[in-house]
């Protein structure tokens, strides 16, 4: 079999260019019997780690390189660089640093044009020589292909220039330059044509430069070229046909035989002997061999890399340092522990420290503790997430607030024995301050040891349909219509679901009637899950040793800090420490609420919250230590049970509210269970039913076996958590918990194998009868992938509880914080409706009283309200905001205008929402809103005059106008103004104009629903604020739609029949009327099971027409 290694291959990780995943390309090389496979993505190593992983799995040697743009003056060209292997990492390091250099911001940078076709990264001709060689010679090879400067000169038939350029390259990088021949059989005489390659071969012969053959691969097979066309369209942001497309479909991974034929064809075309072709192929394989990486030697594959100890300020033994810090934490976390309790804690600590030491992770834990301490001492809220909450060491180091002993969590679930790379610790911090924290981490550890972690988006159905529509040049309205009915399915399934999903009915019709839409479906399917654009979002930091930047290329992140090109799936194999430092808006909201409580209430804070005066977790100044609030506050659980959970972290969605309604939590472990159960697995496996039945006493609490009773208390005997499974397996099979965790993981992949081992070992251990073993195994098998890690749940439940506690005791301050940081799933306008429901006054935007942020303001001795913020006025600039706030207070409108210099539209907007009302007060007659608006209009229409006379003249003029007869805007106009300016209504509600119709129809308000009997027919209406398709027991898709009608939130549920009826309304319509039946979901829960849905506005139009014709016929009659 012929051998040929493709050295120039771009994968789907080349933005909007490659069509095929690295794994698929490696598979193809493997299937073709090749020994190595290369990846050379554009501008980076985005797909490289996956590529290496795939090669290792297939037994192929990995080759890695990158395609880079070269700019010299106004000239632009391309090169491909391949790292040499087995160089102790020098090849990889050179390539990495060259790539980082290409992305680094440069002097005189051009403005970035739109579309990913304009690649912002580039290098000058001098750079490769700087990075790609050392004393021993080149550490990488530069391939000069058809699009290189040499290639372009050859094409232009300028041999003198070509020779000169080539000489320059070879001088700069001796031994590291080859000519790359590519034949895409394009029009003779054009780039990538046979003639072009022949001329390059001639140049190679005359200059004595080695020539290699590649196929500049973009896709796996010719069919993929269609996908490539669509990607090119997305890259240009232009429809197909309006930009220069690829010349043909030849850039695929051609078989070795074909590549050999091409080699001989080129030699023939160049009038060179066959030996030239053989040499070309020989050189190609030689280069391949030179570039084969040894992941161990070149990358220290999977070996952990952490910051050096000195950076952490630790001298001496890290194990001792870790022990010391834990001991210090012990007296903090468990003050007064003694006797048995203390022994228990101590034993557990010793166990964990031993395992940590065994794995060599002491420095890792010390590093994470260091980071968390740094964050905390900056006054920023920080909380660990995930299975790390199960570690006592984490708790003692202050990384996790959750007490693992209190909740019976297991260390082995976090760190078992199978680990070879670093465990994952994720922390949530205040979103609003995350930039500050990232910056601090960079400074503390040094910029050469830290990068940000990136994340990549992939095409989902909606985005794929949009780009397909763009490619075909469809009208925007058509594209919108199609894209907006697509809800949560894989793009690849489009045609399959076209006739099964009711909301796609109209689209299905279009497919039959408009040929372009038929084609759109095909194109959308092709884009499924391809990396959409390498849009880098930061979601964490990578910490490494001082060689980090030789391992990962970086590029700017938009945050002023460099970001790694590797994503979270790559970090493990590289052995790097990833710290997910996620900015979570809820944490910001909690911090803000705490600050507002202190600011507004001061020493009376405890009292205001209904707490005893000497409450230990409220300081004398009014500052609440939220993490110290005991988790057994009955008032909080009562509030949760009402299912008015808007604003409560994790439990505010309609699906969750239904679950809370059933579950009726009374303690913290119920919250943990709720969060753990609200997932597809448990819902389907019917864990919720038994849980709630037993909790409420309708079913006897039963244990799988009495031996398990001690650790199944937290779930009324239902097996819910991974930790339960670990304990059960460990007890049955007489294995340790670490091994049990391994079994648990394998249970998902290979249940039969685990079953065999389970039966064997359990029989050997002899603790259970055959019958009992059978029952236990059935439960374990059914468990499958359904369980949830309790540590995760415990960590999540904390902000749930804290937000609920704040909402219960300090609703005004808490809702204010929600307005400010907008953390949940609902729009601000619904939160405002919630404030109204609770009875919290919303104080309108006021030019004197409002600040930049939302703030609590005391209305009277007994009442506090929330003052809306200036910053939410549409179109207000940062500068205007600063000026207005800096100049407060103002005594008149003209003074505001003079000192703060707001733009005319801004001043008009402020007037229209009443922000200037207080400035005009103090006249004898009350200023009317209409008059005010007219006044402002006049004021700002006048040309500017010298300051001294301004005020005088304007106030003369102004008085008249203010007292004038200018009519006030109607309530509808008022509402519209508010909506337009603030995107929420303060005084009325978006439904108000339709009330006459709603009343006539007998629509029931949200706040009145609970008084209805179960299963009564009802009409409800409102503006859609949330749509959810949560996991349900049956497995069929169920759609929850929540409506806001101004009195509260109505949760409606659409089963299959109703979905059929609703069709396109299901995901697209904003204002709806729904007919259905009430459905009680527990003591305080009420959902409407929908039968029929209508577009409210359409119905309104029809209703008005009917009334109009009735009344006119009445008149006539």
């Amino acid at each position: 079999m012929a051998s040929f290694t493709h050295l120039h291959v771009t994968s789907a990780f080349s933005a909007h260019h490659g069509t095929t995943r690295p794994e698929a390309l490696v598979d193809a090389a493997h299937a073709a019997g090749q020994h190595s496979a290369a990846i050379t993505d554009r501008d980076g190593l985005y797909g490289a780690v996956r590529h290496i992983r795939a090669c290792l799995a297939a037994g192929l040697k990995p080759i890695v390189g990158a395609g880079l743009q070269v700019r010299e003056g106004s000239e632009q060209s391309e090169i491909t660089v391949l790292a040499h292997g087995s160089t102790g990492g020098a090849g990889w390091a050179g390539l990495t640093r060259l790539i980082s250099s290409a992305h680094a911001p440069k002097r005189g940078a051009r403005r970035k044009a739109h579309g990913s076709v304009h690649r912002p990264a580039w290098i000058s001709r001098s750079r490769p020589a700087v990075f790609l060689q050392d004393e021993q010679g080149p550490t990488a090879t530069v391939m000069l292909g058809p699009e290189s400067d040499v290639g372009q000169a050859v094409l232009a038939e300028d041999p003198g220039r070509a020779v000169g350029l080539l000489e320059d390259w070879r001088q700069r990088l001796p031994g590291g330059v080859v000519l790359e021949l590519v034949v895409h059989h394009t029009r003779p005489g054009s780039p990538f044509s046979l003639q072009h390659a022949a001329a390059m071969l001639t140049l190679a012969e005359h200059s004595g430069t080695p020539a290699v053959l590649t196929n500049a691969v973009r896709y796996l097979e010719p069919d993929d070229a269609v996908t490539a066309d669509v990607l090119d369209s997305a890259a240009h942001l232009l429809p197909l046909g309006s930009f220069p497309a690829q010349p043909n479909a030849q850039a695929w991974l051609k078989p070795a035989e074909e590549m050999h034929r091409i080699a001989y064809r080129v030699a023939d075309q160049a009038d060179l002997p066959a030996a030239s072709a053989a040499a070309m192929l020989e050189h190609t394989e030689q280069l391949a061999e030179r570039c084969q990486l040894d992941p161990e030697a070149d990358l220290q594959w999977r070996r952990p890399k952490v910051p050096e100890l000195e950076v952490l300020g630790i001298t001496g033994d890290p194990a001792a340092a870790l022990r010391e810090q834990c001991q210090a934490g012990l007296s903090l976390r468990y003050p007064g522990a003694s006797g048995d309790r203390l022994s228990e804690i101590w034993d557990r600590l010793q166990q964990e420290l031993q395992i940590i030491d065994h794995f060599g992770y002491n420095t890792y834990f010390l590093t994470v503790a260091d980071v968390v301490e740094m964050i905390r001492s900056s006054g920023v809220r920080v909380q660990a997430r995930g299975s790390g909450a199960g570690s006592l060491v984490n708790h003692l180091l202050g990384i996790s607030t959750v007490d693992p002993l209190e909740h019976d969590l297991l260390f082995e679930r976090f760190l078992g024995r199978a680990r070879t790379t670093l465990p994952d610790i994720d922390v949530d911090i205040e979103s609003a301050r995350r930039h500050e924290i990232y910056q601090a981490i960079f400074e503390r550890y040094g910029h050469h040891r830290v990068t940000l972690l990136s994340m990549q988006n992939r095409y989902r159905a909606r985005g794929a349909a949009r780009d397909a529509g763009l490619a075909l040049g469809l009208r925007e309205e058509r594209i919108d219509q199609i894209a907006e009915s697509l809800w949560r399915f894989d793009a690849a399934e489009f045609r399959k679901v076209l006739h099964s999903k009711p909301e796609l009915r109209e689209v299905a019709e279009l497919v039959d009637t408009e040929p372009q839409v038929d084609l759109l479906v095909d194109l959308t399917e092709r884009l499924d899950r391809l990396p959409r654009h390498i849009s880098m979002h930061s979601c964490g930091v990578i910490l490494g040793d001082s060689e980090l930047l030789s391992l990962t290329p970086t590029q700017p992140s938009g945050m002023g800090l460099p970001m790694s090109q590797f994503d979270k799936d790559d970090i493990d194999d590289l052995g790097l420490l990833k710290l997910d430092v996620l900015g979570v808006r809820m944490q910001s909201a909690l911090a803000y609420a705490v600050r507002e409580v202190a600011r507004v209430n001061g020493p009376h804070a405890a009292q205001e919250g209904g707490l005893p005066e000497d409450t230990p977790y409220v300081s004398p100044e009014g500052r609440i230590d939220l993490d110290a609030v005991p988790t057994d506050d009955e008032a909080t659980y009562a509030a949760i049970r009402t299912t008015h959970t808007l604003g409560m972290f994790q439990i505010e969605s309609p699906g969750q509210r239904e679950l809370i309604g059933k579950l009726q939590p009374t303690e913290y472990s119920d919250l943990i269970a709720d969060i753990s159960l609200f997932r597809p697995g448990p819902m389907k496996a019917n864990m919720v039913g038994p849980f709630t039945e037993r909790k409420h006493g309708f079913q006897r609490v039963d244990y799988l076996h009495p031996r398990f009773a001690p650790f199944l208390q937290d779930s009324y005997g239902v097996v819910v958590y991974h930790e339960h499974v670990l304990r059960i397996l460990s007890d049955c099979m007489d294995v340790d918990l670490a091994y049990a965790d391994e079994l648990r993981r394998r249970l998902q992949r290979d249940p039969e194998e685990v079953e065999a081992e389970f039966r064997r070992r359990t029989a050997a251990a002899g603790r259970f009868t055959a019958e009992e073993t059978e029952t236990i195994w059935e439960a374990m098998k059914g468990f499958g992938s359904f369980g949830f890690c309790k540590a995760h749940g415990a960590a999540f439940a904390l902000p749930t509880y804290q937000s609920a506690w704040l909402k219960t005791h300090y609703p005004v301050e808490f809702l204010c914080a929600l307005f400010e940081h907008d953390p949940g799933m609902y729009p601000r306008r619904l939160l405002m409706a919630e404030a109204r429901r609770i009875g919290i006054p919303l104080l309108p935007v006021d030019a004197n009283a409002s600040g930049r942020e939302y703030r609590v303001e005391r209305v009277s001795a007994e009442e506090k309200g929330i003052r809306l913020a200036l910053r939410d006025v549409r179109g207000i600039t940062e500068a205007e905001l600063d000026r207005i706030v800096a100049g407060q207070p103002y005594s008149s409108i003209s003074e505001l205008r003079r000192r703060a210099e707001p733009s005319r539209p801004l001043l008009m907007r402020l007037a229209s929402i009443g922000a200037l009302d207080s400035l005009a007060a103090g006249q004898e007659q009350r200023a009317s809103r209409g008059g005010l608006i007219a006044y402002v209009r006049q004021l700002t229409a006048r040309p500017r005059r010298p300051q001294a006379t301004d005020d005088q003249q304007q106030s003369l003029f102004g008085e008249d106008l203010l007292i004038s007869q200018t009519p006030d805007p109607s309530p509808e106009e008022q509402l519209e103004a508010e909506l337009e300016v603030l995107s929420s209504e303060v005084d009325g509600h978006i439904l108000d104009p339709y009330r006459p119709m709603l009343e006539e129809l007998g629509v029931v308000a949200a706040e009145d629903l609970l008084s209805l009997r179960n299963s009564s027919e009802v009409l409800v209406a409102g503006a859609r604020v949330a749509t959810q398709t949560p996991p349900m027991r049956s497995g069929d898709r169920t759609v929850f739609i929540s409506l806001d009608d101004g009195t509260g939130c109505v949760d409606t549920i659409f089963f299959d029949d109703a979905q059929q009826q609703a069709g396109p309304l299901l995901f697209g319509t904003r204002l709806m009327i729904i007919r259905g039946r009430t459905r009680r979901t527990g003591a305080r829960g009420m959902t409407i099971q929908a039968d029929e849905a209508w577009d409210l506005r359409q119905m309104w139009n029809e209703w008005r027409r009917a009334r109009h014709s009735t009344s006119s016929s009445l008149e006539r009659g």
Partner: protein
Amino acid sequence: MSADPAAQEEMATVWADEAGIPLRLVWSGRRFTVTGRPIQWFDRRPWWTTTGRAPAGQSADVLEQPMWQVRAQAPDGQILIFDLIASSGMQWPVTGIYD
């Protein structure tokens, strides 16, 4: 290389061998014999305007247009270069003529 506008005619009658490689042709009423080695190349089609479907895995031929570029000599000695769209049958569209 320039096109000859006056003699522009869209089709040629082509005789090809078993491999589909042109041997001789008649164009604009004149005979030409193919000399040298014809170059096979691939042009592209605006498939989005011509095809109704392009399902993944089945659309390999909607995009490309196989071509032959041949150098051919007339009895009177004139040499022209033709770009021909490879076709079954004997009528091949001519998309370019150069001298």
